[in-house]
Every structure is written in structure tokens, then in C-alpha cells.
């Protein structure tokens, strides 16, 4: 695994994992996928049943694709604003990312997630919080179910988070969250 710098400012930095099996780092790959119509159409076609719920208002594959495109664009804009230190809905990465588990006493706050911008967004970017303002993206997903354990593609993201923490520990990088 490699760690790739996405951007580094004075007090904020975003890094991304790059795994051997991919020729692109995870963060870049996520936004490539979320702007790839063929990828999105395939994904929502395969997971159409998850769209057929009261929560998502039984939206169609087409609507899901459009929604994802718009949401990804908005999220990317907000992150660009952080990079350029412009006025943003999220003034910092610390405000953009939240604890992975909403409430837990046992879980440390190393594992983090970032949502898309629209209401009920299914976009997720997963990261390890290295310290205040600094995050290491491990992956991301389009999460259509309540629990990450309910689908293979989201369950895989949990494994990536664990593997990344293990990698950092093996390289004697200690987090203080």
C-alpha cells in the first residue's frame, strides 16, 4: 500500500491510500467512479432493490444516477473550497468528516466518514483521522443500506479501515484520537 498526498496546507491535509490492485489512489478513483455514467448505471441497476424503499421514495435508476452526479459535484466543490481555503459549508476537514460510529463509548475516533452534501446522501468517503485537520482516505462507497455490514461493497470498506490502522501501527505511527 502507498500513501498519496491529495493536498497539504498549513493546518490541513488530505492523504489517500493507494492499493496495489488499483492504478489510482482511492480518493481520485472515487470521484472518477461517481462521474462515470456507466459505472453508476451498472451499480444502481445491480442494487435497484435498495432504491425501492420508503426511505428513498422508490426512485428510479435514472434518478439515482442524476442525484449521485449532482451530489458528487457538490461534495467535490466543497473539498476544493477547503483546498483553496475559500468560504465553504465545511470550513475544515474536521467539520467535513464525522466519527464512523455515531455513538459509542468503546470505539476510538480514528475511523471517520464524510457524507455527500444533499439530504439523505448515499455517498461516503471513509478515512482515518491522523490528527486534527489531517485525514487518510481509505476508500468510499455508495451506501444504500442502514448498516455497512449489509452489503459486500460496504463491508469491504470496513476491512480497508481496519487494514489501514494496522498498517499505520506496523509503521509505528501512533494516533492520538
Amino acid at each position, binding site marked *: 500500500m*502507498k*500513501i*498519496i*498526498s*491529495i*493536498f497539504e496546507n498549513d493546518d490541513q491535509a488530505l*492523504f*489517500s491510500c*493507494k492499493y496495489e490492485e488499483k492504478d489510482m*489512489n482511492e*480518493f*481520485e478513483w472515487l*470521484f*472518477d467512479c461517481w*462521474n*462515470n*455514467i*456507466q*459505472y453508476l*448505471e451498472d451499480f444502481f*441497476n445491480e442494487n435497484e432493490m435498495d432504491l425501492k424503499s420508503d426511505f428513498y421514495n422508490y*426512485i*428510479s*435508476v*435514472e*434518478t439515482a*444516477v*442524476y442525484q449521485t*452526479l449532482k451530489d458528487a*459535484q457538490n461534495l*467535490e*466543490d466543497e*473539498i*476544493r473550497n477547503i*483546498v483553496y481555503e475559500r468560504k465553504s459549508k465545511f470550513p475544515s476537514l474536521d467539520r467535513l468528516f464525522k466519527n464512523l460510529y455515531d455513538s459509542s463509548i468503546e470505539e476510538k475516533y480514528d475511523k471517520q466518514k464524510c457524507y455527500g452534501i444533499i439530504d439523505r446522501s448515499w455517498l461516503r468517503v471513509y478515512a482515518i483521522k*491522523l*490528527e486534527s485537520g*489531517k485525514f487518510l482516505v481509505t476508500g468510499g462507497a455508495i451506501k444504500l443500506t442502514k448498516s455497512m455490514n449489509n452489503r459486500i461493497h460496504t463491508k469491504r470498506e470496513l476491512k480497508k479501515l481496519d487494514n489501514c490502522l494496522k498498517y499505520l501501527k506496523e*509503521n*509505528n*505511527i*501512533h*494516533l*492520538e484520537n
Partner: protein
Amino acid sequence: MKKESKNKLKNLVSPEKSNWLEKAEFRNDNEEWLQKSSFIALKILRFIRKSKISQKEFARNLGVSPQQVNKILKGNENLTLKTICQIESALGIELISIATNESFTNPKVNSDDFINGSKEISSRSVLFELTPIEHNSCKTYKKTA
């Protein structure tokens, strides 16, 4: 993070650069035509899926390589009118149409102004609209003048 860990992290970070920011800027600068390209790609995808046409077959009918079709279907291609018409012909569907229910004359500028050349056209008219994919959402993508 302790200084020791920070230094170790610094050494771990690869010299390899990410292209994300460059791509993000491109997507931002070319938002409008990329959106239209996306809509066209989605319409093609939904049609060939429904009609059980393979991408290879579609490429063959279009007279291009499967790799080129792949590019088109990603929704990031700056399609020429010629290509759009060829796709429409290959699939027997309409992807875009000329707006017929809107005047091309800018109401703020009359023909005398054109003749006199005294006024600049300050807003654009709609020339094209994408044909709707389905009834219950995202029907027409017209920009208003």
C-alpha cells in the same frame, strides 16, 4: 500526533502525485457540456440494456471500436453533432431535439437593433433540449434564455 509519528508519516508518504485536483478543476470548468454528455450516455445505456443490445453490437452498428463506445458511455466525451446523429441512427432513438416551443428571438432585442447593430444580445436563446428519459423525473433540461 507526536513529532516522531509525524516524521514517520512524512517518510511514508509517496512522492507520487494525485491527479484529483486537476480532474476536479476540469469537471468544474466544463460542467455544462459534461452534464449533457452524461444525460446522453445514460439514455443510451438504459436503451441498450432494455433492448438487450450488447456494447459490442452497438459499437459494430456505430462503426467504431468497443473502446470508443466505452468512452462515450462514461459520459465524459465532448460529442459532436455528427456522432450524436450517428448514435441516434444506429439505435433508432432520439437523443436530442431542437426546441420548437420557444422563440429564437430575444425579446429584449428587436430586428431594428440587429439592422442598426446598436444593441448587444445580452442573453442566450435555447437551441437544443434533451429528450426526456422518463415521465416522472428530470423531464426536460432546457436552459431558459
